[in-house]
C-alpha cells in the first residue's frame, strides 16, 4: 500500500498513469454533465413552491458541495506534502486552488441567480451563501500567498500550512455562520431543506454531483500534468515525451 503510494507519488508514474485516464475520465464527465443537465432541464417536474427555478438546483448544489470538499481535498494534499514531503502533493495543492476557487465562485453566482426568483433579491445573507463566501476568501488567501511567494523556497510548505489552518477553521466558521443566521433569521423559507425530495428530483441531482466530481478530478489531473511538465522539464523522460509530440 505504502509502496504503491510512493510509486504514484513519483511524477513520472503519475504522468504515465494519468495520461491513460484523462481522456476517458473527461469524456465521461462531460457526457454525464450534458445528460444530467438535459434531465434537469427537460424531465424534472417543476417544484410546487419554486416552479421551474428549481432547475438551477442541479448546477448549484453540486458546485456548493464540491467547493467545500475541494478545500478539504486541498488540505489533505497539503498534509501529505508536509508529512511525507511528496512533491506531487505540492503540485496537487497548487493546481487545485484556482480550480476550487472557480467552483466556489460558480456556487456563489448560481446561488445568487437562484435567489432572485426565489427570494426576490440577488443576495441574501443566508447561512449557506455566507459560509460559501468565506470559503471563497479562504481559497483566495491560498492563491494570493502562492502568487506573492512565487519562486521562494518555502512557498509549497507555506501554502500547505495555510490550507491546513483553513481546514481546521472551516467547521468553526460554518457553525458560527449557521448560528449567526439562526439568530438573525429573516422571514423566508429555506432553499434546500425540503421534507423529502421525490426520487425523480434527487436522482438527477446525484448524477450531477457525480459528474461534477469526475469533472473536477479530470481537470485537476490536467493541471497537475502541466505543472509536472514544467517542473521536470530537464529530466530525460520529459524530453523523450516531448520529442514525439
Amino acid at each position, binding site marked *: 500500500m505504502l509502496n504503491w503510494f510512493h510509486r504514484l507519488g513519483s511524477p513520472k508514474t503519475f504522468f504515465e498513469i494519468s495520461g491513460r485516464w484523462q481522456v476517458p475520465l473527461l469524456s465521461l464527465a462531460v457526457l454525464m454533465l450534458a445528460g444530467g443537465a438535459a434531465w434537469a432541464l427537460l424531465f424534472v417536474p417543476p417544484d410546487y413552491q419554486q416552479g421551474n427555478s428549481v432547475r438551477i438546483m442541479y448546477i448549484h448544489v453540486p458546485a456548493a458541495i464540491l467547493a467545500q470538499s475541494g478545500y478539504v481535498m486541498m488540505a489533505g494534499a497539503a498534509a501529505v506534502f508536509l508529512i511525507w514531503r511528496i512533491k506531487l502533493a505540492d503540485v496537487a495543492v497548487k493546481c487545485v486552488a484556482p480550480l476550487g476557487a472557480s467552483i466556489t465562485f460558480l456556487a456563489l453566482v448560481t446561488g445568487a441567480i437562484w435567489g432572485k426568483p426565489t427570494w426576490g433579491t440577488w443576495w441574501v445573507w443566508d447561512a449557506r451563501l455566507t459560509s460559501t463566501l468565506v470559503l471563497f476568501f*479562504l481559497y483566495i488567501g491560498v492563491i494570493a500567498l502562492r502568487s506573492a511567494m512565487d519562486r521562494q523556497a*518555502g512557498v509549497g510548505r507555506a501554502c500547505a500550512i495555510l490550507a491546513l489552518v483553513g481546514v481546521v477553521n472551516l467547521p468553526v466558521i460554518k457553525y*458560527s455562520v449557521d*448560528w*449567526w443566521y439562526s439568530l438573525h433569521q429573516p422571514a423566508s423559507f429555506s432553499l434546500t431543506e425540503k421534507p423529502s425530495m421525490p426520487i425523480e428530483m434527487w436522482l438527477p441531482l446525484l448524477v450531477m454531483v457525480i459528474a461534477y466530481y469526475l469533472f473536477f478530478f479530470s481537470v485537476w489531473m490536467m493541471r497537475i500534468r502541466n505543472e509536472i511538465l514544467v517542473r521536470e522539464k530537464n529530466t530525460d523522460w520529459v524530453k523523450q515525451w516531448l520529442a514525439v509530440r
Partner: protein
Amino acid sequence: MNLFIASVRRDLLVHFRHPSEVLNPLVFFVVVISLFPLGIGPEPGQLKAIAPGIVWVAALLATLMSMDSMFRSDFEDGSLEQIVLSEQSTFIFVLAKVVSHWLLSGLPLVLLMPLAALLLFLDEAGVWALTLSLLLVSPTLSLLGGIGAALTVGLPRGGLLVTILVMPLYVPVLVLATAMVQAAEAGSDTIGYVYWLLAILFGSMCLAPIATAAAINVATDQ
C-alpha cells in the same frame, strides 16, 4: 521560560522607546470609529444599533495593521533564525511574541473601548459587554494573526496579504462577539457567549502557535 520572559521584556522595551508603532493602530481605531457618525449621521438610535459591528470591525482592522510587524524586525536582523537554530522551543518563542503583541495592541484597544462606546451612544450594559468581549477575543486575534504574520514574514510587503489571509479566520469570533454585545444590550444573559469565546481562545492557544512555528521554520529555512 527564560526565553519567554526575555522575549516579552525586550519587545516591550523596544516599543516603549519607539511608541509610534504601538500608537498608530490605536489612532487608526479612534479615527475609523469617529468617521462612522460622519458618514451615517449623528442620530443616536441608529448609531447605537450598529455600534457593536462598527467597533468590532474597526478593532479587527486595527489589530491587523500591527500584525505585519510581529516577526518582521526579528526576521530582518536575523534573530528569528537564531531562535529556530537554537535549542529553545519555537513554540514558546511564538507564544511570547503573541503575548507581547497582545500587550501592545490588544490590551490598549480594550482600554479604548469605553471611549468608542461613548462616541457611539452604547448604554452601560453594552459598554461592559463590549469591553469584556474584546478582552476575551483580542488574544485570539493576536494568536490567529501570528499565523499570517509568520507566513508572510519573508515577503517585502506582506501587510495587505496578512489581512487577506487572516480575515476569514476572524469570522467566528466577530460573529460571537457582536452577538454577545447585542445580547447584553437587549438585557439577556451573556455567559454562554463568554464560554464560547473562552473555548475558541483556548483552542487557538493550543493550535495556532504550532502553525505559526511551522511557518517560521519555513521562512527561516531558505
